[in-house]
């Protein structure tokens, strides 16, 4: 017998009522089921069940996020050393700064998760594993840790737990946390100085993102390239930005993995990409300034900023997205549309993808309502 199982079997009575520790049943069950997937026998038809469960489901999202996370660590180090160091040294520098953010995010988040699970008697759910990793990926590497803690607390409590936990929330908790930090601590979250760790070797002002380029006359594409953001660079990700957002390539790779395994809805992802391409292309032909992101064209819009990360991992959070297929297309498309719109006409929040997703989260129930009305109207009534 597995020695671990022995430990669980010995401790089991303490956590089952009327055991002394039955108050902490939530933590115990969560730990136990993490190691040993329970296999309750079905009581009602159907008597066979698919092997997929939420642990598997969420661990696939984590799996898709891993390359993004690891690359994010590497890139943080790369930006610090300006590429002038060994690969391992750069990765190590990055990891040293990124890991604490992830640890704080998971630690504080779990505290709230467990507190609510214990107080309200529900299970500790797997959804948080994704939230806890997603939030750090949307943050700049220079963010103070106490702000991470505050952000994840807000996201988990106000974004999720007040609604009853994973599955019952309205907004993506990681995005709620991110938006909270964005509006609360704009100094830590935007501007040119936050995307690169303060480094003795590199000028901090050089740490601007591609989206902050523009507005000084000339053509935006050339200006962006001149500023050091060629399309390849934006695509592969060796440029300053939020920890996880820089590599559009790895984000889309993760998206592809999630689409193939059907964990994420391809309708949202494709819809979002179509939304960006169509809108960006439309703006290209509209009269408007040529020196801002207004006329940057589809490819620059697709690969820059947090769009790839957002559309692959945040927009596809099924809970906060519409539940109907037609709704998902519209939802994805509008996220793309608003992303480009904000970059084009809102100089205050050029990095609009996160807010666009949050905004569409709010309207997801409306989209669902309308599309359900239409679907129900098409059926031959049976009432």
């Amino acid at each position, binding site marked *: 017998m597995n020695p671990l199982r022995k430990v669980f079997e010995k401790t089991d009575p303490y956590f089952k009522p009327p055991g002394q520790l039955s108050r902490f049943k939530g933590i115990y069950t969560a730990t136990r089921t993490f190691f040993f997937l329970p296999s309750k026998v079905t009581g009602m038809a159907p008597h066979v069940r698919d092997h997929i469960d939420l642990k598997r489901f969420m*661990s696939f999202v984590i799996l898709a996020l891993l390359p993004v996370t690891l690359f994010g660590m590497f890139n943080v180090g790369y930006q610090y050393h300006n590429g002038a160091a060994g690969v391992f040294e750069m990765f190590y520098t990055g990891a040293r700064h990124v890991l604490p953010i992830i640890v704080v995010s998971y630690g504080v988040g779990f505290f709230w998760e467990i507190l609510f699970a214990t107080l309200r008697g529900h299970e500790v*759910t797997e959804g948080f594993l994704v939230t806890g990793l997603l939030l750090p990926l949307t943050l700049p590497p220079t963010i103070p840790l106490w702000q991470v803690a505050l952000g994840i607390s807000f996201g988990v409590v106000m974004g999720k737990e007040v609604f009853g936990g994973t599955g019952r929330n309205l907004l993506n908790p990681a995005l709620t946390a991110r938006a909270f930090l964005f509006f609360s601590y704009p100094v830590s979250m935007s501007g040119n100085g936050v995307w690169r760790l303060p480094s003795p070797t590199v000028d901090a002002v050089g740490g601007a993102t591609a989206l902050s380029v523009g507005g000084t006359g000339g053509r935006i594409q050339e200006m962006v390239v001149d500023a050091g953001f060629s399309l390849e660079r934006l695509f592969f990700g060796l440029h300053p930005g939020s920890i996880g957002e820089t590599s559009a390539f790895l984000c889309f790779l993760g998206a592809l993995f999630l689409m193939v395994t059907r964990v994420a809805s391809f309708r949202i992802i494709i819809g979002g990409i179509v939304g960006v391409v169509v809108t960006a292309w439309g703006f290209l032909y509209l009269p408007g300034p040529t020196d801002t992101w207004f006329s940057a064209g589809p490819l620059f819009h697709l690969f820059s900023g947090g769009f790839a990360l957002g559309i692959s991992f945040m927009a596809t959070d*099924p809970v906060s997205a519409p539940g109907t297929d037609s709704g998902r297309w519209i939802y994805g498309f509008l996220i793309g549309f608003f992303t480009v719109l904000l970059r084009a006409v809102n100089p205050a929040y050029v990095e609009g993808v996160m807010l666009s997703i949050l905004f569409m989260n709010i309207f997801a129930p409306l989209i669902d309502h309308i599309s359900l009305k239409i679907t129900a109207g098409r059926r031959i009534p049976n009432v």
Partner: protein
Amino acid sequence: MKPLKPGKTFQSKINGVPQGQATLLERPKTVALVPGASPFVKLKLLVGENDTVSVGTPLLQDKRDPKVLFLSPGGGRVAAIRRGARRVVQEVVIDLADDGAHEPALSFAPISPKALKAMSRMEVVNVLKLRGIWPLIRQFPFMDIPQESNGFPMAVVSLHSGERFNPVPSLFLKDQQAAFLHGLTVLQNLADRVVVTAPRSAMAPLKALGLAEQVTHVVQDAYPAGDPGVILYQIRKSAAENASCTMDPQELIAMGHLLSTGNVQCRRIYAVSGTPTRPASHYQTRTGTPVSHLVGPLKQGKGIVTGGVFTGTITSGDAHMGMGITTATVLDGVDTDAFFGFAWPGRRLLSESRTFLSCLESGSLGMDVTLHGEERACINCGWCDKKCPVDLLPQFIMKAASTGEMEEPLALGLLDCTGCGLCTFVCPSKIDLAGILALSKQTCYRERVMP
């Protein structure tokens, strides 16, 4: 003979599909009348324990319509009357008379096809009620015993539901062509239109039996393409057709047999599948035979499901096969925890998702009766509506029904739900969607039909 357009189905290949010809089993010691799972029937017992009965003696009566009788499937002594929750009669067990050759049996007057055509619909209905056949005709959308004797807009006879564990049509139709055709004539008398469907794979054997022309629609070879509710959903043109009826093909044969010969037909072909101790195959024996008689001795850690793995019930070996139920499946029921269950690549794990390596495997996979996870809140992933054969959005109906509201689930098509169980099967949150939908249907029935 029209092929129906392919719908959403269960695609995985599975182990334990019954193979080969029907083997004749020896005569069981007991048989039982198991009136079935319809939650709406209120039964009245007409016999007591130790009474002597013949094949065809009325044992039960529907309180709502005293003319609706349930006849005994065996001759002998009433050994036990088993009751379930709220003292509802579940089984009337009959010890068969020792001598198989002299089993007492009632005989009815035969009715020829010609005489049948001359009878009015009302007369046919009365004959069916008194001869115990009426309870086997089920009416949509509640799958209740039909309460009114009006004609049905349509009668759907599906020769195979598409679930691979069900009996193959050519086996139970063999040598029963006349009874089958006679049964169809009865249905033609009752319904404006009779629809007979068979999966593509059954068409060649049916042609050999000379029954291919009877098939009006060919369906996919996959579950639940052949489910009568799914077929009705696909071919109906108007809301009036929602009141159609359906009948199990073997019961249709029995009906034809009873009317043409006057004798109750007590033979059935059963499919035994999964991992039983005897080979997974077809067996011919009495109606209402004990489950253990059918599947053989049961090993530790196994469970028996009768009536299909997606829609049936878990039974014990000493229970008997219910009316209209023709499959028994033995599945593993290991109640052990899988170490790091969520992290295995899963080369041999059955899943409709693509999160296991098994989606790349070409071989077939085993099933078991475990949940494979813990119940969680719905995460709105929408896999249930990707599998629903009648295009429902089960998660929305579930959420609307959870507030006890009735209007919205009905508008979303709740009554079209055939209870195929695929939504529950694929749900990663392990929510029993099919069960919740079935419960709301029952609530709806109570509000509507029995106010």
